[in-house]
């Protein structure tokens, strides 16, 4: 399995050769608590790095999910619409949110390695 990369806003990215899978981190799902709803983006939508692309709602609040990479949405995880708890149960696996075809793969270099991400969440 490819190594994951991370953002300071708690998304993860898995590079599968020009297409990346995106989700939220285990730390994010722990912070949010039980997730009860997700608003998924439309397939074919072009997004820029940093755009709000999805909304996850926990029992307590709604939170934006930001595009970690610029590109076009090629796939969304419709299983989450029926069962948002997958985001809690398996955030790096069956809880993936979307797949993007990258428009600027060099942006991958700006993402955090696992240890840097772990350091960034310890600071808070």
């Amino acid at each position, binding site marked *: 399995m490819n190594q994951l990369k991370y953002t300071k806003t708690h998304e993860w990215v898995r590079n599968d050769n020009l297409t990346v899978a995106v989700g939220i981190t285990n730390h994010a799902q722990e912070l949010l*608590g039980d997730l*009860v*709803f997700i*608003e998924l983006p439309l397939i074919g939508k072009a997004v820029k790095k940093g755009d709000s692309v999805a*909304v996850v*709602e926990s*029992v307590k*609040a709604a939170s934006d999910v930001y595009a970690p990479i610029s590109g076009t949405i090629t796939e969304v995880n419709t299983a989450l619409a029926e069962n948002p708890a997958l985001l809690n149960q398996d955030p790096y696996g069956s809880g993936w949110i979307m797949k993007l075809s990258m428009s600027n793969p060099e942006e991958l270099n700006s993402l955090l390695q696992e240890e840097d991400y772990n350091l960034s969440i310890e600071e808070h």
Partner: protein
Amino acid sequence: MSMHTSLYQLHLHENAKMTNFFGWEMPLSYGSSIQEHNAVRNDVGCFDVSHMTILDILGAGGRQFLRKLLTNDVDRLPHPGAALYTCMCNEHGGIIDDLIVYQRSPDSYRLILNAGTKDKDLAWIEDKSQGFAVGLQTRPDLSIIAVQGPNVFAKLPAILNPAQHDAISTLKRFECVEIEQYFFARTGYTGEDGLEIILPHFLATSFWQQCLKAGIKPCGLAARDSLRLEAGYMLYGQDMDESNTPLESGLSFTIKWKPQDRDFIGMGALLSQKDHLKQKMVGLILNDKAIMRANQKVIIPNQPDGIITSGGYSPTLEKSIALARVPFETKSTAKVEIRDKLFDVTITSPRFIESN
């Protein structure tokens, strides 16, 4: 510096996720707040609510003082060991707080006030008590543990002694009883049957641990909030405050108009508002997949907009529910605006579950 209840270390030991609640560091959840919610609906759960303010009102003037102070009438209490839910209003009928008052004996009443309103409540009560033969005493030496759910009387007796068990076995709704240093009240904020137990801190820690050992699930403030929302209980500071009256807030039942000469604080203002209401509280149910939240706009045909005061996910109904303040003439349908999209909602009474 945050304040801690006597059970704080035990919450940390249970790996509770903690949150700040009006200066108190309280458990939000011990894992899954939905599981905690469902435990209270289907089995039994326990809550640390020691952050709430306990105020004892002692002395021969207590009854007359409370008849002046509160919208509900303590003369309606059938006997010592009974309780009622009430609002406390200012002269304009604005709600200063909502509370439960317990009559312990003819000369002794106990009030449970919200944590977030403690200072203004105490200042108000102190001021209004002038001229009455009463003494006021807050009880920071006591903890409050709520044990709530349909199996409360099946599971709790395992940790009670015979005298305590006897005492609670005959307790009716909105009654209370004291056995040694334990105060048991059959009240709660979840819409389920249950008890609220007030006891000294040094007894609270072992009582809490025994609850957990007896299979009573520890529950945090997140579950408390979703439970009270399903039950349609208003939350002070969120669903109503001093800019609203009980009449506008679904709390008319807390006002006792007779006898007319009781003249409680706010009575005149409430009387003149009574037949000219412009707003009311309703429940909203959303059948689409989205979640309603506080402060979202409620759009009603031919009426000014309303506003959601509390919204969220109902684990029991598995859809989003909300409490909303809307124009008085609002009928059965409306739309809610969620992130620039409009959703149809059904308007209901603000009570989403069958009461148990």
